[in-house]
């Protein structure tokens, strides 16, 4: 229990006033020697005992009235941990507050983060001042930060008020290590109990990562999370916008990928595109769980929009979060795609191209049956080649590559062992085209099945090659081959259904799309970091920036330097509290602005499964409390302001006092 206006309790000594008054009145009682005593006695006199009782009752009522009024003014608020067996008020405690984006999900009229804050604040207020306590949350760099108190829990409240939502995945493991370090620093007896209260929506992802965490044996963990949300797991829509504008004629296209991370499909997010704060276009999106939709905007800006801020926003009905993303997009023209060979009938390539280039037309998408029918190529064209291997073909492709033509080649391997299937089990996930599969990892490719084949290398004389996908036998399935300005993606497949099921999997279109996109991005000089995946750093492999400026939406500029580490230039520790963009200055190049998206790391929103969390802290006693259980039904913290009840009680006592006093007199 605590008092909202504690200083009113100084008035408590007033309670002696009625006692003094009573004593004074007793001394003041007139004593009269009276002759007709028997007549007085025979009158309707309340007997002496009753009179004493009444007097005492009156005294008690007056004292109660004073106490009640003082309490009413002091406003006692009952708070404390509920009957959760592992939590009591007199034990050192660390509150781990998940301040990731997903905690902004709205449930029962409030967001998870607000609910968690209220509960943490109540719990902190309920703590005695001399109990060590800590608050762990994610700072702007995505690292765990601890605010500790040994004798002043108010510090925690102050810190709690200033915690903002961070666009990172909350690293529970790191938070637990931080809490453990805090407890170790207290020099408490090893057996002295310590509590960790985790306020989170889910930690499925963290819990499933790597080794378990060994906490002090005396630590007890209580996980406060939304147990009863009826959405099949809290979730949210991740989104990103394409990092370039594609120009065709006077119009531009911009695509936005929106993904529903295990959320119910009821509410529809709205994607909006603004130019100079003017809404250009908006689109309602309906998504099922785990589904990603790419929405393309096709618009004509007022003037040249390169290096101009385009504002994109995703309005999520269930989230209390500013999803606005500022974007400065480079511009390039719509490419011409020439399909050679067996893919000519495939609608998938068209789909892959149109997914990205909404303005693709017959002029931009040519299909030919053989190499000799290929028209003259221009720099900027992309060839998708699916013809049988021959020395002519090898020569032709090498020539195209050296001329800066992008190629996607489907090359059937030489020795196929039909009858024995294998799968893709190794992927170079650091490659930008696999950025969307960063979360799923290599499992994303498990749906591809191919017949076993012996290792084959297409154009082995080209040295600059990178294996992107391998089969279970370690044989390359997909490679990237570079020659001068040309980039080629090689699939050891027939691009039909003869050797593998690749073209029938859900991966086919996105991979083709991203391959096309990567070729284009490479051609216009965009470094690989353009395919950003996470927000806390990006790596420059080829270029050497002289400086990087981070510009937030309000125009604040932060100069960043690149560091040469392990043969790469890495820019890290970026202020990503808000989305913004970089201006990259390179020697001999024009400044390039790069949008910096909200990372999509957060969003694995399947409900928290205690069994999974148990794998993270297998040796620590763990209790689970529903964040949204009613305060009287066993929520973590009870908090009851009984001011109104006290006031009513005061009125009742006052009424009783008047009634008794009236009867008494």
């Amino acid at each position, binding site marked *: 229990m605590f008092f909202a206006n504690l200083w009113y309790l100084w008035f408590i000594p007033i309670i002696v006033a009625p006692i003094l008054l009573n004593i004074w009145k007793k001394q003041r009682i007139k004593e*009269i020697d*009276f002759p007709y005593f028997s007549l*007085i006695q025979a*009158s*309707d006199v*309340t007997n002496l005992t009753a009179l004493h009782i009444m007097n005492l009752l009156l005294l008690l009522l007056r004292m109660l009235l004073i106490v009640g009024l003082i309490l009413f003014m002091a406003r006692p608020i009952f708070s404390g941990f509920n009957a959760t067996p592992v939590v009591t008020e007199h034990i050192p405690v660390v509150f781990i507050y998940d301040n990731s984006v997903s905690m902004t999900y709205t449930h029962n009229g409030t967001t998870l983060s607000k609910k968690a804050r209220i509960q943490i604040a109540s719990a902190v207020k309920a703590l005695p001042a001399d109990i060590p306590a800590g608050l762990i949350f994610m700072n702007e760099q995505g690292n765990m930060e601890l605010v500790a108190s040994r004798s002043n829990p108010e510090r925690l409240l102050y810190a709690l008020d200033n915690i903002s939502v961070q666009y990172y995945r909350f690293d529970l493991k790191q938070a637990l290590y931080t809490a453990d370090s805090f407890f170790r620093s207290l020099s408490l007896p090893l057996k002295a109990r310590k509590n960790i209260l985790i306020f989170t929506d889910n930690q499925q992802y963290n819990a499933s990562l790597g080794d378990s965490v060994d906490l002090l044996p005396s630590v007890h963990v209580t996980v406060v999370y939304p147990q009863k949300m009826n959405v099949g797991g809290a979730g949210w829509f991740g989104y990103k916008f394409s990092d370039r504008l594609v120009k065709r004629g006077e119009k531009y296209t911009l695509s936005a990928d929106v993904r529903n991370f295990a959320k119910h499909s009821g509410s529809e997010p709205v994607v909006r595109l603004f130019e100079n704060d003017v809404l250009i276009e908006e689109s309602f999106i309906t998504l099922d769980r785990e589904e990603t939709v790419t929405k393309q905007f096709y618009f004509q800006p007022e003037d040249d929009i390169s290096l101009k801020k385009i504002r994109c926003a995703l309005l999520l009905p269930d989230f209390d979060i500013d999803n606005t993303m500022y974007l400065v997009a480079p511009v390039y023209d719509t490419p011409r795609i020439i399909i050679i060979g067996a893919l000519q009938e495939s609608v998938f390539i068209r789909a892959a191209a149109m997914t990205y280039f909404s303005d693709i037309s017959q002029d931009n998408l040519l299909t030919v049956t053989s190499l000799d029918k290929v028209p003259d190529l221009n720099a900027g064209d992309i060839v998708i080649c699916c013809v049988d291997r021959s020395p002519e073909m090898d020569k032709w492709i090498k020539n195209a590559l050296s001329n800066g033509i992008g190629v996607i080649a489907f090359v059937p391997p030489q020795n196929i062992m039909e009858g024995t299937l294998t799968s893709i089990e190794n992927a170079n996930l650091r490659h930008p085209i696999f950025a969307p599969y960063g979360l799923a990892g290599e499992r994303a490719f498990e749906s591809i099945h191919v017949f076993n084949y012996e290792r084959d290398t297409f154009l082995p004389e080209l040295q600059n090659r990178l294996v992107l996908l391998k089969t279970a036998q370690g044989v390359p399935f997909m490679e990237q081959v570079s020659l001068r300005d040309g980039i080629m993606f090689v699939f050891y497949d027939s691009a039909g259904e003869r050797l593998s099921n690749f073209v029938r999997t859900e991966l086919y279109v996105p991979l083709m799309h991203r391959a096309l996109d990567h070729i284009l991005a490479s051609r216009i000089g965009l470094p690989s970091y353009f395919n950003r995946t996470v927000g806390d750093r990006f790596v420059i492999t080829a270029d050497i920036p002289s400086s990087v400026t981070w510009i937030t939406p309000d125009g604040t500029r932060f100069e960043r330097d690149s560091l040469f580490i392990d043969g790469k230039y890495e820019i890290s520790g970026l202020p990503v509290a808000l989305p913004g963009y970089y201006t990259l200055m390179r020697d001999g190049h024009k400044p390039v602005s790069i949008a910096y998206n909200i990372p999509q790391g957060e969003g694995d929103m399947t409900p928290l499964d205690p069994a999974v969390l148990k794998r993270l802290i297998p040796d620590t006693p763990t209790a689970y409390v529903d964040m949204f259980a009613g305060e009287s039904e066993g929520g973590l913290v009870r908090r009851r302001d009984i001011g109104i009840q006290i006031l009513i009680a005061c009125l009742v006592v006052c009424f009783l006092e008047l009634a008794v006093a009236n009867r008494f*007199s």
Partner: protein
Amino acid sequence: MRKYLDPALIAQLHRLELKARLVVEGSLSGMHKSPYRGFSVEFAEHKSYFPGDDIRYIDWKLYGKTEKYFIKQYEEDTNLKGYIVLDTSASMGFGKDKLSKFDYAGKIAVALSYLMLSQRDSVGLLAFNNDIVKYVPPRNNMIHLQNIISVIDNLNTRYDTGICKAFQYLASRIRRRGLIVLISDLIDDQGKVLNYLRYLRHMKHELIILHVVHPDELELPYHGTVRFKNMEYSDTLMAAPDRIRKDYQSKIQSFIDTYRAGCWQEHIDYGIVRVDEPVEKAVLDIIARRKKR
């Protein structure tokens, strides 16, 4: 003496006389009718002369007509023997801050004594509480008044009231019919007191009951919480007078009415004397009441 009789009161009393309403027996001729026939102014009857009778009272005129000796008999005026029965119980001490009931009763006793003595009646005093405190036999000289005053002056109010005992004592001492004036607040067993009053009346005594009351006793003018103490016993009682006033007033009125009715039935002169009224008024009221009869 001045405490009891101031000159103004004496001047008023001079013009008054306290007549016995009934015949009384006395040894001196006075202003009251005596049951004894004798030689006085007012003719009563004739009786035959017997040797030894005073020949001065032979009616010679009748002898001339009848030639028999008759003695003229007259209604004799005799002197009154009055007994002031004064209550000195503790309850009579009520009202000390101004004028206690006892002080007031003492003044009335002295005034009546003076009145009776001044008309050559004898007056005695019996002071009592729950026992006989002092008895002063009746005398008819003025010096006796000083004696009575000095006795009253030395009386203290204490103990409870024993009116019946006083009457019993008095009845055993009085041989002849006389006037008994009881000055008391009558806080005693009402039934017994009324029985004794009847008994005294049966003995042909004339009775005057002066019920001395303090206005506070009638009105109960207290407020708040009051601890009432019994003046004659050690009882206490907490009460809120405001709450019980009406009930109390009706009870004391009933108490008074019981005495008044009982006295009226026995032809006893009963009067309330309030201590907030002047003594002379109380005495005048008594005399006025008696003149009416």
